């Protein structure tokens, strides 16, 4: 089986700042893959490389066997056109730390938008599916509310429904609970847990060690732009091998 995400020697720098210094990893289909690490370790940057929101400077990155952002002919690499990148992104859902819901649209309009605009789905069909998705994240009764009328946890669940509406084969979560009040975190994690059970492939940048331990199939600890340690979340979290991992976990657990 081809890996859902495969990274080989991925480097990323902004000017002089070298953020990613050679990332190699593989995410299998139906796997929940957690990325942890201190802030500035490059985990969010790596996540954003997967759907080409950031361009990588070196290495190769594949999603479902397809090179991200480039086309290779012989040993020459061609940049993809914006429209081709958009085509790749259709299959990759992303959930942001700050939700990034469209504030001028209601919850259900947020969820309908991409299927209508990108896939050309009929409005009625899109609405029906959007309502079902909102039901699934427990917000069936909030369909007509604007994001500003929803709590952070509710907004994040709408954002998850919006990403699911494109029926992605891979979901990226960029610290989905970091901007939430503690009592709202559980709601969002429950939705993510449900997604994992349904077999969605998920790459999750998180500080929720409990979630990583319970739901994660694989865990990577990043620091300073490199993968320091990886393996089964239970093993890594309870019995870290590397000093930097130990130091980090002693601070967050």
């Amino acid at each position, binding site marked *: 089986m081809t890996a859902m995400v495969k990274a080989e020697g991925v480097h990323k720098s902004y000017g002089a700042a070298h953020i990613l210094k050679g990332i190699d990893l593989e995410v299998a289909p139906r796997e929940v893959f957690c990325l942890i690490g201190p802030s500035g370790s490059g985990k969010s940057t790596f996540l954003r490389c997967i*759907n080409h929101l950031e361009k990588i400077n070196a290495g190769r990155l594949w999603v479902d066997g397809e090179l991200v952002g480039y086309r290779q002919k012989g040993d020459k690499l061609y940049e993809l056109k914006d429209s081709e990148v958009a085509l790749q*992104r259709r299959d*990759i859902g992303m959930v942001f730390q700050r939700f990034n819901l469209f504030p001028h649209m*209601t919850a259900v309009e947020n969820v309908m938008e991409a299927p209508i605009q990108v896939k050309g789905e009929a409005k009625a069909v899109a609405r029906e599916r959007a309502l079902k998705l909102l039901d699934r994240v427990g917000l069936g009764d909030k369909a007509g509310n604007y994001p500003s009328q929803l709590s952070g946890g509710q907004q994040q669940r709408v954002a998850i429904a*919006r*990403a699911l509406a494109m029926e992605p084969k891979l979901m990226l979560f960029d610290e989905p609970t970091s901007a939430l009040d503690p009592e709202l975190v559980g709601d969002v994690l429950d939705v993510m847990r449900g997604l*994992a*059970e349904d077999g969605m492939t998920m790459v999750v940048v998180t500080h929720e060690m409990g979630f990583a331990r319970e739901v994660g199939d694989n865990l990577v600890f990043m620091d300073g732009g490199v993968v320091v340690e990886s393996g089964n979340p239970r093993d890594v979290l309870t019995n870290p091998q590397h000093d930097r991992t130990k130091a980090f976990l002693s601070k967050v657990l």
Partner: protein
Amino acid sequence: MTDKFDKTPADEPPTGSSASKETTATAHPEQIKAIPVRHYGRWVSGAVVLVLLGWLAFAFAQGDIRWATITDYLFDGRILQGALNTIIISVLSMLIGLVLGIVFAVMRLSKNPVTGAVAWLYIWFFRGTPVYVQLLLWFNLALIFPILNIGFYKDEMVDVMTPFLVALLGLGLNEGAYMAEIVRAGIQSVDEGQTEASHALGMSNGKTMRRVVLPQAMRVIVPPTGNEFINLLKTSSLVSAVQYTDLLRAATNIGSTSFAIMEMLIVASIWYLALTSVFSVGQYYVERYYARGSLRQLPPTPWQRVKTNLRFLQSPRGV
């Protein structure tokens, strides 16, 4: 994926706690009955302003103004036609300005250095010269290009450049430069996360701009645009200098033949005030429309506000 994790039922939206009931249950404390502070200064300043106002009214009543002429000509056909022309030229110039504004704002923000520089040059020229001068430039275009020749169309420039076209080009192109800056500020005010979220959903650059960025930018764009339009409505009086029969020109035409110059200027002022008032109300409703989603509760409409104010007058303490 294993199934050993029990999926808890989809979470409920948070419900209000019962704490609020307790507070309402407590008995009302005794109301404070104190003698309010007397604001003598307000009474004095109010009286002074009233006296000055009365003096001004008296002065105008004494002035040599033929009031009957004003009422006679207020709804004169030529005045109405002039007012209509003013509206037409203002609305059309604004539309041109709006389209040009969006185009040049996007050009300025584009990564292409050529379009960026051209947009900068356009804004630099049309914002940097007085609109009156620009109108005169269009008006006298025939002096340097006597013949208009654009391949499939050829004509005398003086025939092409009718007063209407001169006014339209002069006001529209000038307005476009101002609108470009307003639109640019609006687009830049939209959070970058919005573009990212839209791109992550697979939406193209064009759709992201049209469906996500511009509707949100509108909230920032609309208020200054309303001001621009009201400004334009007044600035349009300059087009009387290029022979376009707008409201001011219609009024002065009558004024110079009937020796009622001041009276006709008052007539024009009344119409300008009426027009700007009507468009101010319209602006309010447009702003309200684009504020949806960004405010938890939309502000009251003017009529709702009048009703609240009436209620406030009935109970002066505003309770």
